[in-house]
């Protein structure tokens, strides 16, 4: 039996985490059961998000149904002190590790993580943000650490604009500067970043004296028309220089294809962590896809169903209806279940709060048989998996798709600048939990920086990471990608 304690940094210090008690409880429960203990791994994590998709104890099947089947017992050390770990383990193990526990209301079948319904919830959050905000009484930005987006940081903006001026001056001297100067922002939020950027740009351009502002086209892109409406009002003072476009951040060239090789700066802030993500786990030299299955704990499901005058068995269908058409239409279409839109929003919020995911590990026949995106095979994962032994990593399929599809937009001297939660070293995946978690009504997930760097290098792009320089103590990392050679 292997025991893997991941949050090693928390084992020391002023308030070291207690591993012994929950681990002993798990081992005792396993001892009392019938599972082949030589085929069991115990994994201790520290789930950093207070709101997340994990139970305190999970049991996962590895290669389910095959002669090689093994079990992984996962314990969240952060919450282990609040419950009877031995009892939880015993209950799960009595089903011989099958996660098809009867006290769960399943919302879907087994799927790769990126296809699971948590991402439909995430999408709904951004599409119906105004309703969520009305219900909670606070804007999404106030849910961010520090209550504001780093995207608005003026020092960071000045640094970006200065870099642009340097490149443009150089190109201008070589008579190679295009007449139109394009800057693209993917995921504009409320437009505050765009406004801060444009305000600063205008001031700096005046001082610089090259009249670049006249030639500037700032394209605000988001998949929420509502968000774009708000953003447009925020940047009204720059009207002639700003266009707004509805697009899916994972496929920017579908809308921006006309800007291929023309964009000098693509700016992305806190978008990648919010895009669908598979996970791959390497155990004993074999790669597995982490399949997930969303559920609600039965007791909570019963309460939620009662609020919507629905039988618990009908709850999954009702939730999928909500995810499909949103709270406004579902309230209109199902007045028996929801008296008004607010009731539908409340139903949505409670479902989200109770949402959990079970996991299992399904062997991958070969990395090349797995697609990270439609154009990138799982072979791109090989250097990460080969070099680091047993490891679980985020594939960040949505972020990878966005990254790869953004690169063709870049002018030969253009760059992609991205502020997000990046893992910058593969080891960080071994020693800490990297998501997904819940952030208000959306999903938050660490982005696999080494994977993006590797993919970038295979496309002639240098990818560099640095801690966000303009706010101390932040987890935000700045990624800069630009053409090599």
């Amino acid at each position, binding site marked *: 039996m292997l025991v893997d304690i991941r949050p090693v940094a928390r084992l020391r210090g002023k308030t070291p985490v207690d591993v012994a008690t929950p681990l002993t409880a798990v081992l005792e429960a396993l001892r009392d059961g019938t599972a082949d203990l030589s085929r069991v791994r115990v994994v201790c994590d520290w789930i950093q998000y207070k709101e997340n998709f994990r139970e305190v104890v999970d049991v996962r099947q590895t290669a389910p149904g095959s002669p090689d089947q093994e079990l992984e017992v996962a314990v969240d050390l952060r919450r282990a002190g609040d419950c009877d770990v031995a009892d939880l383990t015993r209950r799960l193990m009595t089903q011989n590790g099958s996660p098809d526990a009867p006290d769960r209301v399943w919302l879907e079948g087994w799927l790769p993580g990126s296809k699971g319904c948590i991402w439909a919830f995430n999408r709904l959050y951004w599409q119906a943000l105004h309703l969520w905000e009305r219900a909670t009484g606070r804007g999404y930005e106030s849910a961010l650490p520090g209550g504001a987006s780093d995207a608005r940081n003026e020092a960071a903006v000045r640094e970006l604009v200065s870099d642009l001026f340097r490149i443009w001056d150089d190109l201008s001297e070589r008579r*190679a500067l295009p007449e139109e100067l394009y800057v693209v922002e993917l995921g504009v939020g409320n437009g505050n970043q765009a406004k801060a950027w444009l305000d600063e740009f205008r001031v700096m351009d005046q001082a610089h004296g090259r009249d670049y502002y006249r030639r500037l086209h700032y394209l605000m892109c988001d998949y929420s028309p509502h968000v774009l409406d708000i953003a447009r009002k925020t940047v009204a003072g720059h009207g002639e220089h700003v266009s707004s476009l509805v697009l899916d951040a994972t496929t920017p060239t579908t809308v921006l294809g006309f800007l291929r*090789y023309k964009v000098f700066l693509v700016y992305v802030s806190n978008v990648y962590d919010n895009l669908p993500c598979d996970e791959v786990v390497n155990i004993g030299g074999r790669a597995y896809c982490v399949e997930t299955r969303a559920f609600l704990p039965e007791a909570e499901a019963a309460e939620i169903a009662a609020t919507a005058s629905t039988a618990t068995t009908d709850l999954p269908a009702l939730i999928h209806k909500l995810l499909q058409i949103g709270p406004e239409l579902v309230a209109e279409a199902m007045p028996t279940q929801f008296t008004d839109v607010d009731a539908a929003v409340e139903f949505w919020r409670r479902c989200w709060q109770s949402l959990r995911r079970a996991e299992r590990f399904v062997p991958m026949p070969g990395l090349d048989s797995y697609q990270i995106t439609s154009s990138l095979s799982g072979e791109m994962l090989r250097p990460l998996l080969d070099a680091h032994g047993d490891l679980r990593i985020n594939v960040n399929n949505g972020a990878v798709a966005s990254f790869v599809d953004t690169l063709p937009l870049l002018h*030969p001297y253009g760059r992609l600048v991205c502020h997000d939660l990046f893992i910058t070293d593969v080891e960080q995946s071994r020693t800490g939990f990297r998501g997904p978690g819940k952030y208000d009504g959306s999903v938050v997930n660490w982005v696999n920086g080494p994977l993006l760097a590797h993919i970038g290098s295979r496309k002639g792009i240098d990818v560099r990471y640095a801690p966000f320089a303009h706010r101390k103590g932040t987890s935000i990392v700045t990624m800069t990608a630009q053409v090599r050679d």
Partner: protein
Amino acid sequence: MPILLPTTVVGSYSVPEWLERLKTDFYRKRLSAAHLADVHDVAVKAAIKDQELAGIDIVSDGELRRDNDVDYLLARMPGVRATTTVKSYYFDYYDLVVATPLTEQPVGLAEDFRFTREHTDKPIKFSFTGPFSLSRRVRDEVYGDRAELVRALARALNAEARDLVGAGVTMLQIDEPFLAGYPEQVALAVEAINIVTAGVEATWGLHVCYGNRYARPSWEGHYSFLFPTVLEARVDQLILEFARKGDEDLPAIAELGWDRALGLGVLDVKSEDVESRDQVAMRISRALEVIDADKLIVNPDCGLRHVSPPVARAKLRAMVEGAAMVRNRLLGRSEELVSAGDPAS
């Protein structure tokens, strides 16, 4: 009898993912040099076969033995030293230094030609990167003057060209993928090209593009920068990219006095979208408005290295069929195609 609107290729042929992996495995010591050589032989034969099946009139070895446009030639030149022979990815450039004066000793590209000759009966074009572009990827510890370095490289390439012609090469192409980034140095580049071609009896082509590293342009601009200096280049063909950039520069090239053959780029090698034969035919027809048909050669913009093998094959087929449509029209025949590559002559 010469072919009207002959079709040919430029640069590297599509590199399959498995070949990239094996090439990289070699640098990681997971594959021996002997096995890699076998792999290259197989890949080159397949590339030749793909071109033949598509109906290409003048084929190449697809440059599949070459990691990139620089290292295969430059790293083997006597006088050039690689600071390290380790690469994390085969396509990366070596860090190269001219450590001692370059000699005029061929590096052995003729062997590659002989292998190609053994595996096809089609006319063969053989290409190498030109002295100006090579000079941009090497540090100089000998000459102390970049122009002198370029000339020295040109002399070494002249020796290589003589060796190639001795092996039976009749069509040679100089690729200058870096030139568009340094338009103010065209005179030096042309001077060096004339050193390369001096005394070498072959049909010479000069290929200038805006870069194709990782399927991205390295620069943007207009081909007018080549003129009038390029008129002094002792080459027979100018091979340029027009499919991705558009053909706005075409009339200017004719007006600025280019009266020799023109290699017309009709396939965008930076896009996986496959051109239709009608698109290709249209591009050729537009070129014929300013260039005589007997001076037009039909080719991709640059190497198809970065598109997938199925896309590369489809693009070549479209190019051959588009050229055949125009050729048939010019010869007063039906535009209906009998088969891909119908080589009207």
